[in-house]
């Protein structure tokens, strides 16, 4: 039984639709373009200012302490469910989102971005009727359950379960990366984009082709596998035949990653979007921890797929061939293995696994053009920690990184930069045991 004293925290959502007179922006001549790198962080902006024209203003305040809640992402959609914009609450808990004009809008609070210890109790969405004749304020409340009084053991278990889920998701991607590295020795810097590819494919199948989410995931995995096949056929195999060195290939993969990421942004836009089903689900109590159905589903799917893949790699002929090629390509070739064919299957399998990881992430939270890139280093950390090129190592590493990522904030790692703990572990493991936990000691320097 949970002995939680639920403090009801009011989040005051003040709707201010104002038509400000369009003041001429002070024109500054600036011959030098700022380095064009879209910022990858979603940390709280320090001070938001109201935009010109009509907008929705949101103020999130924890009424028990009167502290503002910063760093929470809010997404505004119009009546046709098309996204208008999003805002992140600043240090005063305020966010402003421009709207095109009068009408009914839905403000959705992104649960993932709530700070640790605060859990949303009610619905994450509010409908807002925007009236143009300025100065109208509407106030309504979002119920937030404060969990600060939850005993440490319970918070630990919740974080642990979250970590296992996250570890399983990145485990799929890490297995893909490890397989590709094992057979081709390529450290693939575009691997993050393969995760995003899976997520966007799921989104497109779901929203554009109207498939139910579960079928969309299956379709996305198939499309990802095809993408892997195409990549090897038209990019990596010609490069191998050309005899291009490993470092050159690595730089090519960086270029490919940049290319894909900005193509995704071009086609998908810069915002976060949700699938049509399973967006918000209540959590069910399982005794020590609580899980939404979709989270339980993600955990089960990931475990089943990982088990099947690993058993397949150990037992089947193709699996043995893959391991033979990663051990010694020249010897495998002279033993009559079609090395190129094996590598092709590895690309297909690896990209499919990675695509599944992206699809599960899309269900778990939302889809964004750089979601995979943000995970790339965590996947690298997982694979390096377990041992580059080893199958079980990738899984072990992912679980450790995943749990560390979620549990770390309980032990003092600032929650807005949870990645730091995992990356520090990556550097430490290189210091003491560069071959990773399960890797064989070999010459790596």
């Amino acid at each position, binding site marked *: 039984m949970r002995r939680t004293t639920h403090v009801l925290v009011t989040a005051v959502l003040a709707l201010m639709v104002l038509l400000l007179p369009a003041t001429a922006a002070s024109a500054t001549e600036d*011959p030098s373009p700022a380095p064009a790198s879209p910022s990858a962080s979603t940390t709280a902006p320090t001070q938001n200012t109201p935009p010109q024209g009509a907008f929705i203003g949101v103020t999130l305040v924890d009424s028990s302490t009167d502290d503002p809640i910063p760093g929470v992402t809010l997404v505004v959609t119009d009546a046709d469910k098309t996204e208008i914009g999003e805002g992140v609450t600043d240090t005063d808990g305020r966010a402003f989102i421009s709207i095109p004009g009068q009408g009914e809008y839905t403000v959705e609070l992104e649960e993932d971005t709530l700070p640790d210890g605060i859990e949303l109790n009610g619905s994450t969405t509010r409908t807002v009727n925007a009236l143009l004749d300025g100065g109208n304020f509407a106030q309504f409340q979002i119920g937030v359950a404060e969990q600060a009084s939850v005993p440490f053991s319970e918070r630990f278990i919740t974080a642990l379960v979250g970590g296992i889920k996250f570890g399983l998701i990145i485990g799929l991607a890490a297995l893909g990366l490890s397989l590709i590295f094992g057979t081709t020795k390529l450290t693939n810097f575009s691997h993050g984009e393969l995760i995003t590819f899976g997520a966007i494919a799921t989104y497109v199948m779901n929203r554009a082709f109207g498939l139910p989410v579960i079928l969309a995931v299956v379709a996305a995995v198939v499309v990802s596998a095809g993408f892997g096949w195409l990549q090897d056929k038209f990019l990596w195999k010609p490069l191998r035949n050309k005899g291009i060195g490993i*470092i050159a290939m690595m730089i090519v993969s960086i*270029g490919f990653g*940049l290319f894909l990421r900005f193509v995704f942004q*071009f086609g998908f836009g810069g915002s976060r979007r949700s699938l049509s089903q399973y967006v918000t689900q209540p959590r069910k109590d399982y005794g020590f921890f609580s899980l939404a159905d979709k989270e339980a589903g993600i955990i089960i799917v990931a475990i089943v797929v990982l088990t099947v893949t690993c058993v397949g790699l150990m037992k089947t002929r193709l699996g043995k061939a893959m391991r033979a090629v990663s051990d010694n390509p020249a010897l495998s070739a002279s033993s009559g293995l079609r090395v190129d064919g094996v590598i092709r299957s590895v690309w297909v399998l690896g990209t499919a696994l990675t695509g599944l990881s992206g699809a599960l992430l899309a269900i778990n939270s939302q889809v964004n053009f750089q979601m995979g890139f943000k995970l790339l280093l965590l996947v690298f950390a997982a694979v390096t920690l377990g041992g580059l090129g080893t199958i079980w190592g990738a899984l072990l590493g992912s679980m450790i990184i995943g749990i560390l990522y979620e549990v770390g904030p309980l032990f003092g790692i600032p929650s807005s930069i949870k990645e730091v703990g995992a990356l520090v572990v990556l550097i430490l493991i290189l210091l003491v045991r560069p071959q990773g936990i399960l890797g064989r000691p070999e010459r790596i320097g």
Partner: protein
Amino acid sequence: MDFGTIFSSALASALGPTAIVYALAAIGLNIHFGYTGLLNFGQAGFMAVGAFGLSVSVVTYDLPFAVGILIAVLAAVVLAIVLGVPTLRLRADYLAIATIATAEILRLIFGAVETKDVFGGSNGLSGFATTFYDLNPYNSGLDLGFISYRRGDLWTLTVGWALVILACLLVWLLMRSPWGRVLRSIREDEDAVRSLGKNVFAYKMQALVLGGVFGALGGIVLALFQNNVKGSDFSTNVTFYAYTALLIGGAARVLGPVIGAMIFWFLMTGIGSFFSQATSGTDPLIPSDIMSDTQASLVRLILVGLGLMLLMIYRPQGIFGDRKELAIDAR
């Protein structure tokens, strides 16, 4: 379509402060990657410690400007040593992962809400360049008709290009010295150098420190001309763009990174302003159904990725480089 404006904005950018920042960063990478064969993917981290070394000393701790510069350079040296000890013995791909991870750790810490009191959070720090701009000897900006720079930028440009020239001179002198020859031999065959009794680790460390200091100088120039630094200025893309600039010009050539950075920013700004013109106005050249103006700003970034791939596949030596002098066929 006004090609004159496109050309002059591209030219202004090729000679502008951003090109200087990338030239300095790429000169550092040239020492790491071009001459020594170290695959440092964390140059953004070196730039960040340079920029934050200066701004934190001046803004947060109220130290004099000159001390701030000294601390910025020292910070880069310390980072290179701390980073080098565990990673320089590792294979190229491990080094790449370790350095990129370090740069990300630094970026996250510099931009975090929790460290806002020291590093200024997502807004960053500003107001540390007053001493620098007070030294400005120019009385007015420069207007050559087709390009013009404001007074403050002109001063940054003078100092920046002077730094670039000094850096090139230093690299040129070093690389024709015995020390430089050892670096290049390490790139070609580390074991051979070791068997000749050279301390490979020490040479690699010296190269990492020197290249890192150039990276930090790039970060300082960036901080000065923006008069603001924030963690998000130093994303991994910065490192990748610096690599692209280096590879355009040609690695292992003294002027390669400088020319590369100029060409890189010429093209970035030129293509950017071409597509922004092509999609703006009442009757755009490219209809807005095909490409909106937000999308137009992404075209140049897509082309960077494509360009980096094609460059590496078809002409890894860049414009001036020598294919044999390139550490891309490593173990």
